[in-house]
């Protein structure tokens, strides 16, 4: 049931002084309305309790963004569009820019204001976690004068704030000292545009080497108010980064948040995702420099290292040479050296590697090397194994002809190739002379070993 406009009073004084005078005369009677993106929704739904409203939309003094030395003063009447268009906000307070872009649609960003968002005090509001971690202050104004309060203290309970009935937020003050910080904000919602968040976060950190010098973390929708995670921060501040510290931080987060089940999400989901977002942020601060498998393998004995890498290519000479060139600083160096060694081997060594593969379409190699190699062969040849009987028979016949002609097994990189395609390649290669065919086989084996190296490095890292 819609509200009747005749039941509501709306006035639009032309200056801030007159608005404040009106609010001082009858404290609590007049409700300020700026862009109307909250008040008018309540009005449209017949739920607007306030009956007397005062428009502050046209007050220019509430709509400025001013650089005042080491502070940025953002007028409370600035719209999300104003925030998005501000280059100083984009460069110095990027999480506020990002949150403004998340809020509602373009039309709502043209009307909704940052001050309105703060006063409305929704725990789900996207821009409020950013204000918490930037440690903003609010300038509150009334006919009695101005006072500055830390934004951290502003929300006192669900939809409860420090704002007195005759007060307005005049400006949001942002300290300009975050150039050495890394920041990250994330929103989790059912779609990208126009969605009220299931949860949202803003985090800011300064690190030095593997040490967290300072960190600030805030979440929306995780408590009755936009929440700074002071306890979690305490665990992390001054810590050396480790998996153990991460575990402690996730535990602290779980103890500190108190989300609810509601129409948008569940408590369980919110707690789990908040922990994941924290972990994601922390890991981004300390990117892994080295692949874990490579790191471990670099430290093995020469013999063990060669035995392990033999799964990627069945030539003992290759495995020994590749292992001998350790340590590899990065994966790319290993990949490059692996190919170089392969091409420098003798034909006999190549043959040994070829023999470690099962015939295409078969399961067992003539001279199997490792269990991992056999498992990988099965994976690489999966499509061939499940091919139609006709194709399989044709492959078997092709293999026989090939071995008769060249005296070794047919080598092809089967990954990503259809059985019929392999059959065509086999038939073509039967027309090669021996030398050209040996080179082509070696090229195929190089592709196989490169794929296997990548698989080896990624597979075990996940464990």
């Amino acid at each position, binding site marked *: 049931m819609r509200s009747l406009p005749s039941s509501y*009073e709306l006035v639009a004084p032309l200056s801030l002084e007159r608005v404040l005078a009106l609010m001082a005369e009858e404290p609590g009677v007049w409700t300020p309305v700026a862009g109307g993106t909250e008040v008018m929704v309540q009005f449209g739904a017949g739920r607007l309790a306030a009956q007397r409203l005062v428009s502050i939309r046209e007050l220019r003094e509430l709509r400025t963004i001013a650089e005042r030395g080491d502070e940025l003063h953002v007028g409370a009447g600035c719209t999300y569009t104003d925030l998005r268009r501000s280059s100083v906000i984009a460069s110095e307070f990027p999480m506020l820019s990002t949150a403004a872009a998340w809020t509602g649609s373009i039309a709502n960003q043209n009307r909704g204001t940052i001050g309105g968002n703060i006063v409305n005090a929704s725990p789900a509001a996207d821009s409020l976690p950013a204000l918490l971690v930037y440690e903003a202050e609010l300038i509150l104004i009334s006919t009695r004068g101005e006072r500055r309060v830390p934004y951290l203290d502003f929300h006192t309970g669900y939809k409860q704030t420090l704002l007195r009935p005759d007060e307005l937020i005049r400006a949001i003050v942002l300290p300009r000292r975050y150039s050495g910080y890394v920041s990250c904000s994330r929103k989790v919602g059912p779609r990208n545009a126009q969605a009220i968040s299931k949860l949202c976060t803003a985090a800011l950190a300064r690190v030095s080497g593997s040490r967290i010098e300072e960190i600030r973390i805030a979440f929306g929708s995780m408590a009755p108010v936009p929440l700074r995670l002071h306890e979690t921060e305490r665990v992390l501040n001054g810590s050396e980064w480790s998996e153990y510290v991460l575990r402690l931080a996730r535990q602290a987060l779980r103890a500190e948040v108190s989300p609810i089940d509601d129409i948008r999400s569940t408590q369980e989901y919110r707690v789990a995702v908040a922990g994941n977002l924290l972990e994601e942020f922390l890991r981004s601060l300390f990117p892994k420099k080295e692949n874990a498998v490579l790191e471990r393998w670099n430290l093995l004995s020469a013999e063990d290292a060669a035995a392990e890498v033999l799964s990627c290519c069945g030539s003992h000479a290759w495995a020994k040479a590749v292992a001998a060139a350790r340590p590899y600083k990065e994966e790319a160096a290993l990949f490059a050296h692996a190919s170089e060694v392969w091409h420098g081997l003798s034909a006999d060594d190549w043959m040994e590697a070829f023999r470690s593969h099962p015939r295409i379409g078969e399961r067992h190699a003539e001279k199997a090397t490792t269990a991992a190699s056999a498992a990988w062969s099965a994976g690489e040849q999966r499509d061939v194994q499940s091919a139609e009987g006709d194709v399989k028979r044709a492959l078997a016949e092709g293999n026989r002809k090939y071995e008769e002609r060249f005296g070794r097994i047919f080598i092809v990189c089967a990954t990503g190739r259809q059985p019929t395609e392999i059959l065509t390649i086999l038939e073509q290669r039967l027309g090669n002379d021996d030398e050209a065919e040996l080179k082509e086989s070696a090229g195929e084996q190089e592709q196989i070993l490169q794929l296997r190296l990548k698989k080896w490095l990624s597979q075990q890292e996940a464990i």
Partner: protein
Amino acid sequence: MAARMEIRFTVNGTERCVPAYPMARLLDVLRNELSLTGTKEGCGEGECGSCSVLVNGELVNSCLVPVLQVEGANVRTVEGLATEVLHPVQRAFLECGGAQCGICTPGMIVATVHLLQSKPKPSMDEIREGLNGNLCRCTGYTRIFEAVKSAADSMTPEELKALTTVTGKVR
């Protein structure tokens, strides 16, 4: 109880003076007092964009604007786009099949005009963002986005310039 007051604003280039309650929604004043029924009501809570109009060139949901807040402003509705011929954005929506049931169409077209004012050659991502507050339950959006692209590609520099000036007449 509030009293009606005379609210003055410009609609599609013509100055109007409308008796209205200050909290009346701009949407209702346009439709009921000025008979500009091109602007549609969808959700009535600022989610769907059917009631999109331009106020001083800015895209807004007219269901969320109390009419007192447009006192002295320049309002442009979908009726203010076509002259003797269709507006190029309207033409593109027709040619690309960017409309089915039609309820979202005026809002889509107004949002497109707003987008092209600042981004005459929008990328697909910019189109998606520019229209992110306009919901369509029929088309699946693809043809709407194609219409926006086609409008942007086909508009002459004069037509693009005209986007920011009011050309239409209230019928």
